[in-house]
């Protein structure tokens, strides 16, 4: 396969004359690419992300698409930074707009010295900081297909930001290696076209250069991938799900290789089927999971209760999106927490575990599988759209020290030595030994009706009281084993911040901004939502004057949960919320916090 070379000798494309001096080196930059669905904005963002990644920078890639397949506004932002970053940059150095709407929508986010590149074959703008280049016309006239306007634009950007030509090319090869040689060739040509057009444009001298980072071994990964990876490592072998944004990728990733490992991945007819297939598989002894988002989760309510009552260990990943009801399928929110903590009629134990980063998604998925089997109950992995779908530079996973803990699972030999096998045996910690159906010499009854130790329906009153306590006390006995929170920031700070999930990113960015302004803060990232680990939270609350609970919903769900669990500290617990479908950005959160210094809470 021979692809046209980008002339590495072309110095102009590397350092060419900058307007007003030599290019400014950026250590933290962001590019926003907007257009109509189908314009290929995601591809441009992906190419930029790959480039930055290869240059050792931290990358954070987020997208804003509509719940439709083509057309409608879609944009993507790529942040690249020398320092770790897991939030969207507040101000964009560069905006690439394929249509007029994208320019208008993007402008408020433009950095003061930022630039807009727009497709002048689509529209015209008089904005002083906007420069038009006819991406589509260029691609159309020179490649015969205007569709290459996106790679053409990438070429322009690569020029403007002083990309290394070899790396720029490598990115294209990486991305299009599995496509046809023709596609690869055209894309490489499109870059050239873009770079050439840029070089020829009077106002488009290279204005920035991008610092080189030092990351290596990292991958740009999204939470859904990390959850799938954790599931495989954690012994997960059965998955049943039903497509739903933003959870579908977990099923898709698992579908690729789990089947080659005696695993089963099924797309079920609906969420009722998925959760109940998972229950059946887990009953039979498989580590089993489903993943979904709000609407599917609501449909799984009865099934989750069945797992709790019948003591069947299952894992349910909830990729939260904007609610209520069908809501806004592609947007970000954290509004299922209260529902999950209380999900289901009657009372049964469940753990709600929430990773705060991509790595955490991996490790906590493994923990969650272990916890489910150890305690024989449903575990919910509480995720959110930003965590699930935004690409983030992620260090390699360390498999050392990981384990698949099967709890009280008995081998056939151990069973043979028993006097009696009871699926619901009363034990000091509430969790009963388990042997899968098929184990010689025993049979078991499992049911969601109230039952005795053998699993036969029982209406005996003392038995009822004991069985309720058996199940519910798992919530107490398990406390020491549940994922602890993490603390970030200044240990002596008197201002506390509390958050979970992807809000970790904006909170940590806000902490840095505040620290730079002389306001030290400390941040408690909660990883076990339920049961509330009061022993880890009370000391934090006691050590601060105020703790702002930052979350993406209307009512302040986590704040309410904490207030209810630790009412004696309610005054310290203040709520900061956002529910417009987008993650906080660091400075925005800082502003919200600063606005709050005087009075509390909505």
């Amino acid at each position: 396969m021979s692809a046209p070379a980008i002339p590495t000798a072309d110095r102009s494309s590397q350092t060419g004359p900058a307007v007003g001096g030599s290019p400014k080196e950026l250590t933290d930059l962001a590019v926003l690419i907007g257009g109509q669905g189908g314009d290929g904005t995601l591809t441009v963002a992906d190419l930029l992300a790959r480039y930055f990644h290869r240059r050792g920078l931290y990358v954070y890639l987020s997208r804003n698409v509509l719940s439709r397949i083509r057309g409608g506004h879609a944009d993507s932002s790529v942040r690249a930074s020398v320092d770790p970053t897991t939030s969207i940059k507040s101000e964009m150095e560069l905006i690439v707009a394929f249509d007029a709407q994208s320019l208008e929508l993007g402008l408020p986010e433009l950095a003061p010295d930022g630039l807009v590149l727009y497709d002048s074959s689509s529209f015209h703008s008089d904005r002083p900081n906007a420069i038009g280049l006819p991406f589509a016309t260029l691609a159309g006239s020179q490649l015969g297909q205007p569709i290459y306007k996106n790679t053409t634009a990438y070429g322009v950007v690569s020029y403007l930001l002083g990309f290394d030509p070899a790396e720029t090319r490598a990115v294209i090869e990486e991305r299009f290696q599995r496509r046809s040689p023709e596609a690869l060739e055209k894309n490489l040509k499109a870059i050239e076209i873009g770079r050439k057009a840029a070089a020829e444009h009077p106002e488009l001298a290279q204005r920035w250069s991008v610092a080189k980072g030092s990351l290596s071994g990292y991958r740009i990964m999204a939470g859904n991938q990390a959850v799938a990876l954790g599931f495989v490592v954690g012994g997960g072998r059965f998955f049943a799900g039903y497509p739903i944004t933003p959870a579908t990728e977990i099923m898709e990733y698992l579908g690729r290789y789990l089947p080659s490992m005696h695993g089963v991945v099924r797309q079920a007819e609906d969420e009722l089927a998925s959760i109940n297939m998972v229950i059946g598989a887990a009953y039979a002894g498989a580590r089993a999971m489903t993943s979904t988002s709000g609407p599917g989760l609501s449909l799984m309510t009865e099934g989750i209760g069945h797992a709790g009552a019948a003591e069947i260990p299952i894992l349910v990943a909830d990729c939260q999106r904007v609610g209520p009801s069908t809501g806004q399928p592609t947007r970000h929110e954290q509004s299922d927490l209260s529902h999950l903590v209380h999900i289901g009629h009657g009372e049964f134990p469940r753990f709600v575990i929430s990773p705060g980063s991509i790595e955490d998604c991996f490790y906590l998925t493994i923990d969650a599988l272990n916890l489910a089997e150890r305690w024989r109950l449903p575990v919910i992995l509480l995720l959110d759209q930003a965590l699930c779908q935004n690409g983030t530079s992620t260090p390699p996973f360390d498999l050392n020290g990981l384990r698949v803990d099967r709890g009280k699972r008995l081998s056939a030999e151990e069973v043979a030595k028993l006097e009696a096998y009871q699926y619901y045996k009363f034990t000091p910690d509430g969790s009963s030994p388990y042997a899968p159906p098929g184990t010689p010499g025993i049979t078991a009854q499992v049911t969601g009706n109230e039952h005795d130790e053998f699993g036969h329906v029982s209406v005996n009153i003392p038995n009822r009281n004991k069985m309720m306590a058996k199940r519910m006390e798992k919530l107490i006995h398990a406390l020491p084993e549940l994922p602890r929170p993490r603390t970030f920031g200044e240990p002596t700070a008197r201002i506390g911040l509390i958050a979970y999930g992807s809000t970790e990113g904006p909170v940590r960015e806000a902490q840095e901004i505040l620290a730079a302004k002389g306001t030290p803060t400390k941040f408690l990232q909660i990883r076990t939502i339920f049961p509330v680990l009061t022993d880890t939270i009370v000391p934090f609350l006691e050590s601060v004057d105020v703790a702002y609970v930052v979350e993406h919903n209307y009512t302040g769900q986590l704040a309410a949960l904490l207030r209810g669990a630790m009412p004696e500290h309610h005054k310290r617990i203040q709520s900061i919320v956002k529910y417009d479908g987008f993650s906080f950005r660091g400075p925005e959160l800082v502003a919200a916090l600063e606005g709050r210094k005087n009075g509390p809470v909505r």
Partner: protein
Amino acid sequence: MVQSAKAIPSTWCPGCGDFGLLAAVKKALIELKVPQHQTVLVGGIGCSGGIHNFLEINGLHALHGRLLAQAVGVKLANPELMVIAAGGDGDGYAIGMGHFMHAFKKNASFLYLVMMNETYGLTKGQASPTAPIGFEGNVERPFDAILAALSQPVPNFVARTFSGDPKTMTKIIVEALRFNQEGRGFAFIEDLSPCITYNDTFKLWREKVVDLATLPGNDPSNRSTTFRQYLEVVESGRIPIGVMHRPATVSAEVESLELKLLPDHIGPANAGIELSEENLTGYRKLLASVR
């Protein structure tokens, strides 16, 4: 011997049609010599759904209407298990209808037994989807599960039995379970099982049943002719029973879901999952596919 869950005395009304089916299942299991510990019965919610308690095998008491989804989960997790799902017509054709129609499509090798009594026994006699017009105020035409089963061109096993004739029933259950054992896919048997408390149809049904096998030209491998003959019997005011569909031959292609997905019969529940290099192959490949 390890003491474990024993069969308990039935909670059904004396004379309930379900006893016929219970007896037939017991006999069939004995005849097939499947060890108790390798058999799982997934029960529905309803009088009939309690059947797992009255057998000495493994029981999974599902949610109302969800027994088929749970049964598929069990079978795909461990294809070595013999799996029977059994429940009522309310459970199966009302709240369970979605999973019912999809069970034919999925075609996992397990047996689904519906104890059809035209009513919701356990909630005291309301009309079920198979109730005739007029029963407890019902104005909807009864659902015909056999025709629905015949409508989907999948080589499943489909039959209807009558609790008043447990001998034939046993024979058909044995055939169905063999079909499952051979990995040929899903088997569905609707048993006419009168609810003597709310809808005692024993006499009526005994008079009306016609075994399709007795009709000239009967060919359970041909959906079209069966469909026609079945409709003719129904139109003559009688009730067709017997084997309704039985694929002509063992198909050359593997048709059952568990064999398609797990050709070596090792599944999620009976595979090793400890952290060995072998068990990490999928992880390595998946990781490599991430940018």
